[in-house]
């Protein structure tokens, strides 16, 4: 009698064990999809003076125009003000012939300029800080 029950139990247990494995397979798939979900994010961001943060993608247009990747409502900005692109491991900023110009660390830029961490970017009269996303918490923890 017990033999029969043990046979049934054996298949039930093995079935549940494989159900367990199937769920872990799903977890692995979700894991891999999550890694892919933000393929664009470069890990860099622009931090506004008032603490707002704009994550950077491989290509970003900055300006007043509502179809810009980073829309900034400021009368001193041109509608297409600047372009930030990724090249290799670096981020380059480029002025798009804006009226008031683009400044990095106080200097007006003419050619595409390689941004480094903690650089200060001025567009119109707005100041931004160029940061790696994981460091922003440490350096700007005060207002976050």
């Amino acid at each position, binding site marked *: 009698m*017990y*033999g029969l*029950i*043990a*046979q049934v*139990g*054996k*298949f*039930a*247990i*093995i079935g*549940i*064990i*494989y*159900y*367990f*494995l199937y*769920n*872990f397979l*799903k*977890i*692995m798939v*979700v*894991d891999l999809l*999550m890694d892919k*979900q933000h393929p664009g994010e470069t890990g860099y961001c622009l931090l506004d003076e008032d603490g707002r943060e704009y994550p950077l993608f491989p290509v970003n247009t900055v300006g007043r125009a509502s179809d810009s990747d980073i829309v900034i409502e400021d009368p001193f900005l041109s509608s297409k003000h600047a372009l930030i692109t990724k090249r290799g491991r670096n981020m380059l900023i480029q002025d798009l012939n804006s009226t008031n110009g683009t400044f990095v660390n106080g200097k007006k830029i003419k050619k595409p300029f390689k941004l480094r961490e903690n650089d200060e970017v001025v567009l119109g009269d707005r100041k931004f800080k160029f940061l790696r*996303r*994981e460091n*922003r*918490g*440490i350096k700007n*923890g005060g207002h*976050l």
Partner: protein
Amino acid sequence: MELKMEAIYNKTISATALIGFIAFFLLSLKTVPFSPAPLYGAIAFSTIMFAGYFLTNHILYGQDPALFILSSFISQLGLIMLYRINPAAFSKQINWYALGVLAYILSSAIIKYWVKVKINPYFFLAATLVLLAMPLLFGVERGGSRSWIQLANYSFQPSELAKITFVLFLAEKLRSGKIESILRLSGEILAVTILLMMARDLGGAMLFYMTALAIVFAATSRMDIAAAGLAAAGTAAVFGYYLFGHVRIRVEAWLNPWQDVPGRGYQIVQSLFAIAQGGFFGTGLGMGHPEYIPAVATDFIFSGFSEEFGFMGAAALIVVYFLLVYRGIKISLSAKESFLALAALGIATMFGLQIFTIIGGVIKLIPMTGVTLPFMSYGGSSMVMSFISLGILNGIRQSGRGEEDDG
């Protein structure tokens, strides 16, 4: 997405509990007359498991729930087999499991904050050497190797703790990715390996040595050192075969166990018989004869498991172990700092090698060496220390996550 993940994790942990209830109910039916005692075991186990699951989910922010679920799943299969073999061992082991869960939570929480502290690597090396020398000086011999320390009624295996300190030593020492003096480093690794050889713990010596090679290779990515290390290990193995009797016995029992079935080959032959008896789906819980296998509660628990759960169960168990190592490697890859990445890699490698050594040993793929199957074998130090290692992995994962999410 997070919610969906949580739902899947909840499903897996419920499936684990369900397996426990079915298996222990079968064991209840098997005892004549019907006794509910095994079911109490299942209730005790599920209570500890669910308490641990909810605590880790609520206390530990940014943790990896998979580590706890996978380890509990394996522990439960081990406990089912232990109850089957020896109910008295079960009641001891479930206490060790509870202690292990507690240690897991504590070590995860401590490591999360402790990673910021920098400790001199030689502190870890000294700790490793002292731990390994202790059983040589005042240990007791068991199963041919002198690696236990007896304290009143409890015996403790210091090499289990030494695994962690050794990994931390190498990770701290190689955090810059450069080797200052290769002679000095190899001397330090050899000192540790020789201490283990002196205790006749060959499996342990192999584990420590190969883990060291893996960490050195990951830190420096130098192929020449890895090749030289492997060549040295091969030479040492050949010399060991000719110089030491106990090495030769192990190797001969592996190459041809059938020439001396009642003697040297007895363990392996019984293990092979049991695995063969299991077939594809196993004999069913309680229908096999694990009592024929020597040391079935500790070293040969995998053969006992394959007999009753068959190839399907054993293959699934190996996949679960693989998932555990995969999570460890994943944590190592996502770690922000080289010390943490190397420590996580070392722990994952140690787990992987240990599982390979013992499962390979019982199925006669490699010579049998007496290391424990983590989470499954009967033994307190192995259970608690495996949980602490996983806790360290979890802490490393949390410290990586914390910076991302807090900011």
